């Protein structure tokens, strides 16, 4: 609440006064309209940014819900610290490395824009308020990608690892990938064809899941996950309602994640993106639910939720490139992929929330699906449409298969680069400070061992030990009228 409103009113006053001078005034109106159009875009991006930041709560509750009670509090602290560290890392270094500006084209990484500040010259353009808005939107994406990393690591990782990796991830790993696709880097022009990843099936989700895999390989499974026979045993998370909260927040947040990736409101194109997003999410739920039911005769709640996420991850690359009919197909297959992936991976790797499948495999599927379904109407300049349009339309196979190849390359390149960087980083963390808590702390739970107190104290501390007994509603309620004592 400031005095800035005056400035605005004054500006409008000037506009009106200028009406006396048509030609001058006309240029003013056109310029004003341009200014307002930019503001409208930024309002849209601001809305999207808020939604994407809210997704942090989605990851928080997905992870907490899938953990046991003794590890519920650490998930809260993790999100706080992680989001905070990555914010500072992005502001100081990461945004510069990601280098979204025009001038960065063809570079391996961005070279300017560190310690982001107002008026800063980034390759010839001065930072203004709308630059800040876009930079914040980029941070929200980076934070989502980072949040995905920890899905495989629940219930046994050392807390310090969160902060340490967040620095490297926010300053380097994610920015390198983002630059390569969205910042005019190597993947934005592969022999003339750009990788098409509208909102980041590969850039954000596969990146996060790949780092998650690297960490898991160094960390190992939770105690008790595999029986003496080597078979996986279920370690049920403690709260499906919290899982539900997480999934719905992610789902809703994804409207910002995908819709906001239009950056502009031009032609209300975000409407198409959002409808595609919804259709794929719905189909993802349906696909995953059907498959898990067929496999186990039980409609697993968490798998249903994973299906929603897989559908969303799957459509993330294509949400701005495919027609509506393709979205449910992409989502349905993503729903199958996540169930199949969880069941297959579970045999060897302990991924408590299914991040490898929901973000990794579905991210790969989504990136490739663009090469299958991208509509000629919507593709980027220079890109080829999806293979489908060679089969059922008039696109040349050389163009569509070429694009499919580019999409495949994006997947492979992202996986290899992120895996190497992440593995090295986690290996260093492991060597320097250790990656896994001692067995006694794993048994006791991370809450009490890392944070000094349980996330649900009353589930663990006997009521008798509370400063005030909690259990004696002596005067509460109306006494029952029982037969007179004898």
């Amino acid at each position, binding site marked *: 609440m400031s005095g800035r409103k005056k400035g605005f009113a004054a500006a409008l006053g000037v506009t009106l006064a200028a009406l006396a001078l048509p030609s001058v005034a006309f240029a003013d109106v056109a310029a004003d309209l341009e200014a307002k159009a930019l503001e409208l875009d930024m309002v849209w991006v601001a809305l999207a940014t808020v939604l994407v930041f809210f997704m942090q709560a989605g990851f928080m509750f997905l992870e907490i819900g899938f953990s046991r009670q003794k590890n519920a509090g650490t998930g809260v602290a993790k999100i706080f610290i992680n989001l905070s560290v990555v914010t500072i890392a992005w502001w100081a270094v990461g945004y510069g490395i990601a280098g979204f500006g025009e001038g960065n084209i063809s570079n391996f990484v961005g070279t300017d824009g560190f310690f982001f500040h107002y008026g800063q010259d980034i390759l010839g353009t001065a930072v203004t308020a709308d630059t800040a808005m876009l930079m914040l939107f980029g941070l929200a994406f980076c934070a989502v990608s980072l949040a995905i990393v920890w899905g495989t690591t629940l219930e046994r990782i050392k807390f310090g690892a969160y902060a340490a990796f967040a620095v490297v991830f926010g300053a380097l790993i994610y920015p390198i990938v983002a630059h390569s696709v969205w910042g005019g880097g190597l993947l934005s022009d592969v022999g003339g064809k750009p990788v098409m990843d509208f909102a980041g099936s590969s850039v954000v989700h596969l990146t996060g899941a790949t780092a998650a895999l690297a960490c898991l390989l160094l960390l190992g499974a939770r105690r008790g996950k595999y029986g003496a026979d080597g078979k*996986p*045993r*279920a*370690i*049920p998370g403690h709260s499906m309602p919290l899982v539900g909260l997480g999934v719905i927040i992610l789902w809703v947040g994804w409207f910002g994640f995908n819709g906001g990736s239009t950056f502009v409101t031009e032609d209300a194109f975000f409407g198409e993106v959002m409808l595609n997003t919804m259709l794929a999410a719905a189909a993802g739920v349906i696909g995953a639910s059907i498959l*898990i039911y067929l*496999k*186990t*005769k*039980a409609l*697993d709640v*968490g*798998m249903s939720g994973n299906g929603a996420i897989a559908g969303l991850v799957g459509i993330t690359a294509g949400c701005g490139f495919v027609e509506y009919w393709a979205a449910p197909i992409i989502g349905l297959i993503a729903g199958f992929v996540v*169930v199949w992936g*969880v*069941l297959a991976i*579970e045999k060897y790797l302990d991924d408590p929330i*299914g991040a490898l499948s929901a973000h990794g495999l579905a991210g790969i599927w989504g990136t490739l699906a663009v090469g299958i379904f991208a509509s000629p109407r919507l593709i980027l300049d220079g890109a080829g449409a999806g293979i489908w349009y060679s089969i059922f339309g008039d696109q040349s196979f050389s163009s569509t298969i070429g694009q499919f190849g580019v999409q495949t390359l994006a997947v492979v390149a992202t996986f290899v680069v992120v895996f190497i960087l992440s593995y090295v980083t986690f290996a260093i963390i492991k060597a320097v400070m250790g990656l896994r808590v001692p067995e006694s702390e794993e048994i006791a739970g991370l809450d009490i061992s890392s944070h000094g107190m349980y996330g649900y104290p009353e589930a663990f501390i006997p009521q008798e030990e509370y400063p005030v007994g909690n259990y004696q509603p002596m005067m509460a309620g109306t006494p029952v009228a*029982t*037969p007179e*004592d*004898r």
Partner: protein
Amino acid sequence: MKKIEAFIRHEAFEPIRAELLEKGFPSVSVLEAKGSGRQKGIVEQYRGSTVQVNIRPKLKLEVVVADEDKDLIVETILRHSRTGEIGDGKIFVIPVEEAIRIRTGERGDEVTQTHAE
């Protein structure tokens, strides 16, 4: 005095409590327990894996009464907790040497249940 300890199904408790109250035995205690016996455990599903639960929730009822009331209590418990299915539970009778009402410090048979004061 005897303590009657019975492991029963949850749904049997209320009718037992109500009938005991009516018959002049308002004083009973109950604890959450879990047990195994002839009744088998169950296998539950979660994300495609399974977890095997070998023990089932039961209630442990404890009633202390004078020796002569024992049979009446046992009978009442039996009547309400028998379904004929496995998992109905067991009753055990244990000797009690002394009983004291904390509120008054009184001792003996009379304090086990509430008598006229």
